């Protein structure tokens, strides 16, 4: 046994023991309540069932295993996301509502407002806000729509001020073309543009993705390469109404804590 194992064992031993609770009434009621709910209230044609680790709602950096899976996917399928563009294009209000209707839980559809809707090639991405919070949805090239976030509760506009920013969605999604990263955020009143800079691990190369910004929200998504997913060096630059910029906001730090003005 190594000294590290000894230390871990000592920590475990010092932790306060708690009796099992899964057999108690609250847990049993919760289980029955959950399995009684409709798994997909707004059903869409089911994609091929895949039971593999996916990090779509986790908002996590890729693990090495995930990176390996990404590399294998690319090798197997040729150029992935070939129609993707760094500059977003708009989607119509009708398309936005259609995606929301196929993505959100039925009870939230009526009150949801599409704050960001964009197209990049054959794909569409929507951020919808309801009184309950924000959810993001991704429409794949084959038309399949998936919710790509957990329900996020947002920092108030007042707290963000003029130059603040919040990155509340930074999840990963796996499709049959590989991994993508999806961003959703909330910005201060003077922020008119958001640019995302992706760098390789060695810093030798970078690329910029322009986000869609509207009504105090921003959104963007991008195919995530091997180096980018493991470098943890993604940054955001805010462009302000007066022409100035707020550069080099670390995405990982912003995801942990909003920048308040």
């Amino acid at each position, binding site marked *: 046994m190594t000294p590290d194992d000894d230390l871990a*064992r000592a*920590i*475990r031993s010092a*932790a306060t023991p708690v009796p099992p609770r899964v057999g108690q009434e609250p847990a049993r009621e919760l289980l029955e309540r959950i399995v009684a709910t409709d*798994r997909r209230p707004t059903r869409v044609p089911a994609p091929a069932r895949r039971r593999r*680790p996916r990090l779509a709602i986790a908002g*996590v950096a890729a693990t090495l295993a995930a990176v390996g899976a990404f590399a294998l996917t690319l090798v197997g399928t040729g150029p992935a996301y070939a129609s993707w563009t760094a500059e977003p294009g708009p989607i119509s209000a009708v398309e936005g509502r259609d995606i929301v209707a196929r993505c959100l839980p039925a009870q939230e559809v009526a009150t949801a407002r599409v704050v960001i809707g964009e197209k990049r090639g054959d794909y569409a991405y929507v951020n919808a806000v309801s009184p309950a919070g924000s959810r993001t949805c991704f429409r794949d090239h084959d038309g399949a729509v998936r919710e790509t976030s957990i329900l996020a509760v947002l920092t108030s506009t007042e707290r963000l001020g003029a130059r603040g920013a919040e990155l509340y969605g930074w999840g990963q999604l796996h499709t049959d073309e590989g991994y993508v990263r999806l961003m959703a955020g909330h910005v201060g009143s003077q922020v008119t543009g958001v640019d995302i800079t992706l760098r390789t691990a060695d810093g030798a190369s970078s690329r910029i993705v322009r986000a869609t910004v509207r009504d105090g929200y921003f959104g963007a998504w991008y195919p995530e390469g091997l180096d980018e997913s493991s470098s943890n060096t993604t940054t955001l630059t805010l462009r302000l109404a007066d022409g100035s910029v707020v550069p080099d906001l670390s995405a990982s730090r912003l995801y942990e804590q909003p920048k308040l003005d």
Partner: protein
Amino acid sequence: MNRETADDDSAFRALFEAAYDDLLLFVERRTHLAVADDVVAETFLTAWRRWDEVPASLDDARAWLFTVARNILRNRQRSDQRQQSLALRILREPDAASGAEDDAVATRVDLARAWLHLSPADQEILTLTAIEDLTGPQAAAVLGIARPAFSLRLLRARRRLREHLRRQPGPEPTTSPAPAGRSPHGGSV
């Protein structure tokens, strides 16, 4: 109910039975007890609705649930005007009347006191591996950081805990009574 739905129902129940206690503890360590049940419920509901995305292996599914719960907690804390981080409620000094052997009690006292000197980030790193029994890659995924970064943070957290222990009157713990629960596999990355 079709065949696939019946299978899913059964598999979800198995995951619930296996992971409920660990998930509830994971959440209770990181937030106010009053909201822990809500977070656990939201986490399992997310797993149920997105069952296709839950890893098939129990260990990985458990880590997946932790990741979802941590994100839900982060959402709640982000919206909390106080923006405060709660220290992990992991270790505390044993009661005087606990009846444990003197050496074991002394070890726990030292460890509990040293633990309080750690930053919340160090506490979380050590908790994920030593208490919550995650592998290095699983813990890195829960925190949303790359595995090399996690390894470095774990190394530093262990070093700082040892430094704090050395400042305590007693020796660094080397052996202790065997804990109940799962055997560790998260100690090395």
